[in-house]
C-alpha cells in the first residue's frame, strides 16, 4: 500500500481500514499532517490570558464609567471596591501569565513560542509573506503559504496589538496601582517614573483607557480571523489552541 500524501483520499486508500467499503468522496475523507505547535503551558497561558482580558476589559470600562448610583447607606455596598478588586486580581493573572510566557518562550518553549516577541523586520521573506496574507484577506489570492507557527500578518498584529499593548498596559497599570499603594511602595519605586512621563496620573489613566480599545479591537479581529482560517485555510487554528496540534490539510508546495 502506497503512503498517500496529505489531502483527499480515494476509495482504495480506505481499503483495510474501519472505513473499508465506504466512499471516500462522500465522507470527504482526507489524510492530514499534524504538528505539535502549541505546547501545554502556551495553551494554558492563552486561555488564562483570554479570561483575564475579558475581566479586565469589563471591569476597566466600569471603573471609568461606573454603573448607576446605588441607594442606601454607603456601608451596605462595596460595588466599586469589588470592581476594582476584580480588575487588580485579573491584572495579576495577566501579568504573571505574561512574565511566565516570556520565560517559557526564552528558555523552554519551541521556536514558534518566541514569535510573539518580535517581528523579523529586516527579512524580505517576512514582507513577502505579509503581502501574501493581505492579498488573501483582500480576496485577491485564494490561498496563502502555510506556516507552522503564526503567519506574517498574524504575527504583526500580535506583536503590536497584543505584546506591545499588553506590556504597556502592565507598566501603566502598575504605575496607576501605585496611586493607591503610595509612591514609596515597590510599585511606586519600580513604575513611578511612568506617570510624570505620560502626563501625570490623569494622562496615564487616559492612555491606559485607550489601551482597552486597542485590545478590544484586537480581540474582535483575532476571534474572527482564527474562526475564518479554521474553516477556509489549509490549516487548523482553533483546535490547535485546545489540543496543541496544528493540522495541515494538504502537502501542496506553496
Amino acid at each position: 500500500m502506497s503512503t498517500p500524501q496529505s489531502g483527499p483520499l480515494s476509495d482504495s486508500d480506505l481499503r483495510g481500514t474501519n472505513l473499508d467499503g465506504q466512499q471516500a468522496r462522500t465522507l470527504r475523507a482526507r489524510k492530514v499532517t499534524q504538528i505539535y505547535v502549541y505546547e501545554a503551558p502556551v495553551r494554558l497561558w492563552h486561555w488564562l490570558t483570554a479570561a483575564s482580558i475579558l475581566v479586565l476589559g469589563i471591569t476597566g470600562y466600569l471603573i471609568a464609567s461606573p454603573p448607576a448610583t446605588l441607594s442606601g447607606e454607603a456601608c451596605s455596598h462595596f460595588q466599586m471596591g469589588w470592581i476594582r478588586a476584580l480588575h487588580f486580581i485579573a491584572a495579576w493573572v495577566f501579568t504573571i501569565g505574561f512574565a511566565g510566557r516570556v520565560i517559557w518562550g526564552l528558555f523552554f518553549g519551541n521556536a514558534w513560542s518566541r514569535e510573539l516577541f518580535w517581528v523579523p523586520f529586516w527579512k524580505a521573506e517576512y514582507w513577502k509573506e505579509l503581502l501574501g496574507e493581505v492579498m488573501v484577506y483582500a480576496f485577491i489570492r485564494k490561498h496563502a503559504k502555510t506556516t507552522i507557527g503564526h503567519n506574517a500578518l498574524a504575527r504583526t498584529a500580535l506583536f503590536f496589538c497584543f505584546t506591545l499593548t499588553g506590556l504597556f498596559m502592565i507598566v501603566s497599570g502598575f504605575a496607576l496601582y501605585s496611586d493607591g499603594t503610595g509612591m514609596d511602595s515597590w510599585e511606586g519605586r519600580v513604575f513611578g517614573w511612568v506617570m510624570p512621563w505620560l502626563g501625570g496620573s490623569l494622562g496615564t489613566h487616559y492612555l491606559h483607557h485607550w489601551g482597552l480599545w486597542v485590545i478590544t479591537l484586537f480581540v474582535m479581529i483575532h476571534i474572527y480571523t482564527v474562526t475564518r482560517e479554521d474553516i477556509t485555510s489549509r490549516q487548523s487554528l482553533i483546535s490547535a489552541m485546545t489540543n496543541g496540534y496544528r493540522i495541515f490539510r494538504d502537502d501542496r508546495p506553496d
Partner: protein
Amino acid sequence: MAVLETFYDVMRRQGITRRSFVKYCSLTAAALGLGPEFVPQIAHAMETKPRTPVLWLHGLECTCCSESFIRSAHPLVKDVILSMISLDYDDTLMASAGHQAEAILDEVMEKYHGNYILAVEGNPPLNEDGMYCIIGGKPFVEQLKRVASGAKAIISWGSCASYGCVQAARPNPTQATPVHKVILDKPVIKVPGCPPIAEVMTGVITYMQTFDRLPELDRQGRPKMFYSQRIHDKCYRRPHFDAGQYVESFDDEGARKGYCLYKVGCKGPTTYNACSTIRWNDGVSFPIQSGHGCIGCSEDGFWDKGSWYARLQDVSGFGIEANADKVGMVAAGAVGAGLAAHAAITALSRARHKGDDA
C-alpha cells in the same frame, strides 16, 4: 536689611513668653507630622540659628500664592515672616519700592551669597527674549537667573513656577517656562497648587529652617510630606466611591447627600495634594467638601487635560466632541461591520467554489 539674630531673640523681643515659644514649637512639630521628640530640636534650632534670608521674586503670576501664604494659620504667617525667616525682598509685601527695593535685593545677594533661599512665584516667559514680563526695566528671566546664581535652594511656589500653569497652557504664546527648566544648577523644591495650601507653604519653610536641609522630595521634586498622597486617598467622600454612590449631576439627590463627585469629573483620584487633610482657610473646608470636584490644580498641565467636569479627556481632531469611549465604540462598530461583510464575502466565494479542494 537682615539682622543676624536668632528666631528666639526676635520672638522674645516681640514679647512672646518662653511658654508660648515652646507651645509654638510643638504645634509646628505636629503640623510637620513629626513626633514630640522633635520639639526640643525645633526649639534648639530656633534658639541658635540665625534667620535665613529669603528673597521672593514674582514672575508671570496672579499673586494667589501670596494671597494664600498670608492666610497661614499653623504657623501664623506673621510668625514665619517676622520670626522664622528674614523675608528681605518681596515686592508685594515689602514697604519699600523702586530703586530702594532693588538695592536691598543686591545687598542681600552680595552679603549672603550662597546662603539665601530664593522663592519664586510665577514663571519666566522666554519668548521675544523674555519681554512679556519686565521687572525693574529688565526681563524677569534675567532677574531670576541673577538671583538664582547665589541661592542655596529655590522654592517654586505654585503651579506657575512648578509646571507653568495657565500661562503655559496650549498654545503658550509667551513660552512661559517653569523655573526648573530655566535654573538647572540649583535644587528646586516644587510646591504646586493654584495656589498651594497656606500651611503647606509655611510648613516647607519651617522644615527647611528647622533642619537646615531640603525636605524629602518625590520624583517630581515635591515635598513628600505634603504631596505623597492623592486627594482621593484621604477624601471623606471616599466611602461613597467604594460603595458605588455618585453625584450624577449637580442638582440631584446624590449631590444633596454628599456622594462621591467622580462622575462629575472630580480629579481627586489623580491629584497629589494635601487638601483633604489640611484643608483651606485654617481647616474650614476644601473644594470637595463644598460640593465641587477637585480640578487637579496641583498637577502638571492641568489646564490642558480636558474638562473639569469629565474624567475622560476629549479627543481633539475629530471635529465633534469625542472621547476615547466614543471613538472606541465607533471603531468597534466599524470593525464589527467590516468583519461581518468580510465573512459574508468569504462565505459567498466559498459557496461558488464548493468542491474545488474537497
